[in-house]
């Protein structure tokens, strides 16, 4: 079938903002009809099609209208103008376990939630075992849900929603719940749904997820479509913009941001650390895989000899990732007096995207002139192609020649 599963045509959504709620009769009587204090257009003239059987991502920064769009797709809100047309059974996962009633048991809640999602009693009974199994909550299914742990709550909610066997699944950023094992289960399930031909519409802030999972994506910005197309292109465009914006708004990188103790005798002081991108421009943000330079400004109050400079990079998770120092190479600085700089250049930044705390030190044979412990912040951004880990290994994959193997040959050789 070539018809799209979801068709959004010229959809706009207006919310009326009341500066104060005027939900009581008295308010109405006393002040009359609430003047509309201002309309807020959450979405303006959005159009896109989601082809059947594809996975579609909605991305954008906070407040861009993603969630509103999702609610329109799920039918929770009505568009102010335009139309949302869906072809197939829709199941929406906007919040897991939203409809649970604390006093009722898990089993009773499955019945209630299932019928909200449009399952008949028989279908629910048939899938009950599957649901209990998937949620992995054991005998708790017959306990009131108010005694559930939050993980159990969410697992049960997810299990119900996916058991509906939807033709169109609408998912808000809910995958980020539950423990590692359950998350993996959810991902597996999403991939399975995709394989089965379920159309999935997904809102997430995880660009990696969009690239892994989505065929196409739309990028919303202040309620308007910024870009639409192949998920890779859309994500790339989005990341470029985010990177640019961040570079603009970051404070001067040379400022000491940390609050850790500063050590050293002070003959040489580290004044600042700057980051230079591949083009040689000072930038608060560096890109993984691009050339980078770390420039350390120092000031020596008196003449000192044989100074060794060092840098330390600690990931936000607390792991020390690297600690290059000038002692291991030909020492660039032997005699210092006054102000100057030393630079550390890397042909390709191997740090993975993330936030790092940078330390800098100037020492002389075990004597510390100055040591700025985690005094600077470095943000590393990636272009795309997220890989796991703290550092990236640059290399090339090649395939060796392969030759066909006949099984009986092998057997004969044995």
């Amino acid at each position: 079938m070539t018809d799209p599963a979801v068709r959004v045509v010229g959809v706009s959504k207006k919310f009326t903002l009341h500066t104060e709620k005027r939900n009581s009769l008295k308010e109405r009587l006393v002040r009359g009809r609430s003047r509309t204090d201002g309309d807020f257009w959450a979405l303006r003239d959005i159009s896109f099609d989601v082809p059947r059987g594809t996975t579609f991502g909605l991305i954008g920064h906070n407040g861009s209208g993603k969630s509103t769009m999702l609610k329109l797709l799920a039918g929770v809100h009505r568009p102010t103008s335009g139309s949302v047309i869906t072809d197939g059974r829709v199941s929406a996962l906007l919040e897991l376990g939203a409809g649970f009633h604390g006093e009722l048991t898990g089993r009773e809640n499955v019945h209630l939630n299932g019928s909200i999602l449009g399952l008949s009693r028989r279908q629910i009974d048939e899938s009950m075992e599957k649901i209990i199994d998937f949620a992995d909550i054991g005998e708790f299914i017959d306990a009131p849900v108010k005694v559930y742990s939050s993980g159990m709550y969410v697992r049960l909610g997810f299990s119900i929603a996916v058991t509906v066997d939807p033709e169109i699944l609408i998912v808000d950023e809910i995958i980020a719940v539950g423990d590692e094992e359950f998350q993996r289960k959810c991902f597996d399930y999403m991939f399975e749904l995709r394989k089965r031909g379920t159309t999935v519409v997904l809102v997430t802030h995880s660009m990696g997820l969009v690239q892994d999972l989505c065929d196409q994506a739309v990028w919303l910005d202040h309620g308007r479509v910024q870009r639409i197309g192949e998920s890779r292109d859309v994500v790339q465009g989005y990341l470029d913009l985010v990177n640019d914006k961040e570079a603009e708004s970051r404070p001067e990188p040379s400022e000491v941001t940390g609050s850790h103790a500063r050590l050293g005798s002070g003959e040489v002081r580290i004044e600042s650390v700057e980051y230079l991108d591949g083009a040689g421009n000072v930038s608060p943000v560096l890109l993984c895989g691009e050339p980078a330079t770390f420039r350390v400004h120092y000031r020596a109050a008196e003449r000192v000899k044989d100074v060794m400079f060092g840098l330390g990079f600690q990931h936000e998770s607390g792991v020390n990732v690297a600690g290059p120092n000038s002692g291991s190479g030909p020492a660039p600085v032997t005699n210092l007096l006054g102000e100057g700089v030393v630079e550390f250049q890397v042909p390709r930044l191997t740090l993975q995207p993330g936030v790092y705390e940078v330390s800098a030190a100037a020492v002389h044979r075990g004597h510390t002139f100055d040591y700025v412990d985690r005094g600077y912040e470095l943000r590393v951004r990636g272009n795309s192609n997220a890989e796991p880990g703290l550092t990236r290994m640059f290399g090339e994959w090649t395939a060796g020649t392969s030759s066909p193997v006949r099984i009986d040959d092998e057997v004969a050789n044995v």
Partner: protein
Amino acid sequence: MTTMTVRERGSMWSYRSLIWNFAQRDLKARFKGTALGWLWSLVVPIATLLIYSVVFSTIFRAKPPDFGSGRTGNFTVWLLAGLTAWTMFAGSLNTAIGALLGAGPLLKKIYFPPYTPVLGSVLALLIQSMIELGIFLVVLAALDNISWTWLLVPFWLVLFAVFISSISMALAVLNVHFRDLAHIIGVAIQLLFYMSPIIYPMTLLGNAHKMGIPVAKIIAANPLTQFIEVFRDLTYGLTPGPPLAWLYILVWALAMAWVARRVYRARALDLSEEL
């Protein structure tokens, strides 16, 4: 090939299992964790019945009409007829008015027709009232006060259910927009109780006027009065009831259904934003 918006799917009939599930939720949640459980649904009306019986038959010496079978009237049984019908009405309104606010967190997350939790609440209360109705009929049967007119009770019940659920629906929707409606309704229900011939027979009123206000006429015009009178005629008095009264309650039931539909259409479809 079905191409439509998410909301256009399904008639009220196709949502019956959801309505039923909401009703079950109400019923189960109401008595969970209480020592007497379901018995509470009997204890409260019986206590009410005893209090009114003592107060009105002993202190005020109200005299009930005779049974349809000719037996001398019994005030308690006569009162039970009125109270049974009244409980259905007042109980439904009291629980259903908050049904949409209660379902709010759900309505904000997933689409289902907002009438389902309201009708579920009403259904739950009607089911609970059936126990009371059953006891009432058993008492009558034990007193040998039984006739073919009982067969009309289901018809009466349908009209009454339409009437009650329509009012409940309209009020539940409006209550989301005007939150203090619930308090007003609390007072209005109290007033209605005394404006209906539950603890006094219509015959007691005669042609009562008070300060120029035709009290008796107002009470007779109250649709609840006619619902209660017809029910009493069918069960206690064993007469089919005046045709005009039947017509009256039919018109009221339909009118309320129409009003409820109007209110629902105008106000219920964007509820998820108001909750």
